[in-house]
């Protein structure tokens, strides 16, 4: 096989970043994709905010859909927030010292996630569809991805819950590609895979 043919048959390597606010379901979605394509999970899921405080990666995820083969690296980012208060963790049952430690790690994680943005090829911006989507963090992340010309998909998550409202997300972000999912139940996941394959084609 010539090197040209070999290059063409080699799956494209894509850094797939999971961005979004805290507790939007980024790790749940990363785990779903990891299980589907690599039989592995990326990280631990928790109801306590800022469970993911370091960037977590799952490499060599062999993804194939819509005739597209990709070598994905799933990069689960700490949730981005403009404030961190230890008392929020105490409300979830952590001791004062645990809460303080978590808060310090969370602030470092937010900075890490922001700095890593330039290394991402395709981004999934996950929004909790049960909350109103007007948190400035969502607009800030999307605006920066647009500015850096990174392909991205807006993913309203938790659509299996009765209080979810996809319409309000679509209305708020009408100019963007929106693929609603339930990362927990798998609803909408095939449509998301097709769109990831499509977005990956835009990456040089």
């Amino acid at each position, binding site marked *: 096989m010539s090197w040209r043919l070999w290059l063409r048959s080699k799956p494209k390597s894509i850094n797939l970043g999971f961005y979004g606010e805290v507790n939007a379901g980024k790790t749940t979605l990363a785990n779903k994709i990891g299980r589907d394509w690599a039989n592995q999970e990326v990280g631990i899921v928790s109801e306590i905010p800022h469970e993911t405080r370091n960037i977590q990666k799952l490499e060599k995820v062999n993804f194939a859909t819509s005739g597209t083969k990709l070598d994905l690296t799933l990069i689960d980012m700490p949730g981005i927030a403009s404030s*961190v208060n230890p008392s929020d963790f105490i409300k979830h049952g952590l001791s004062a010292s645990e809460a303080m430690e978590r808060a310090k790690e969370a602030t470092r994680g937010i900075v890490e996630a922001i700095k890593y943005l330039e290394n991402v090829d395709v981004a999934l911006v996950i929004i909790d569809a049960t909350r109103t989507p*007007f948190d400035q963090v969502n607009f*800030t992340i999307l605006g920066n991805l647009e500015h850096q010309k990174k392909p991205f998909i807006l993913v309203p998550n938790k659509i299996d819950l009765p209080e979810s409202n996809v319409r309000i997300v679509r209305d708020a972000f009408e100019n963007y590609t929106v693929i609603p999912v339930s990362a927990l139940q798998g609803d909408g996941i095939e449509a998301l895979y097709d769109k990831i394959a499509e977005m990956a084609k835009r990456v040089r």
Partner: protein
Amino acid sequence: MKYRVDFIPFSEVHDLAPDEKIRYILSKVMRNTILVLESGLTHSEELNLIEKTMGKIDYDDFFGVKLFSFDAGNDFKWTKLFGKGSKNKIFTIVAPNEAVSVTKDERGILSIRIND
């Protein structure tokens, strides 16, 4: 806690370098001032503000900021607030996190509740 609201005209910050602008904002917000910036932040300035804010959180008095950029639309006249003309139609509110609750509803109404 008493909070002050400062309306910052374009002329106050437009000569500042990007990092100086962020330092200016944070220094005021950390002194319990709620800022309404006529010269709204770009999305990359917002991200820079979030990043720099993380370095200032002391987990005691300062827990971060709330920010909200609002596209006022073409009909909005800044002259009503600042007394002079401005072509800028996006303004940004930055406040100490504990100072305000900011919400925007489906109709585009921006509500700012200042906490005690």
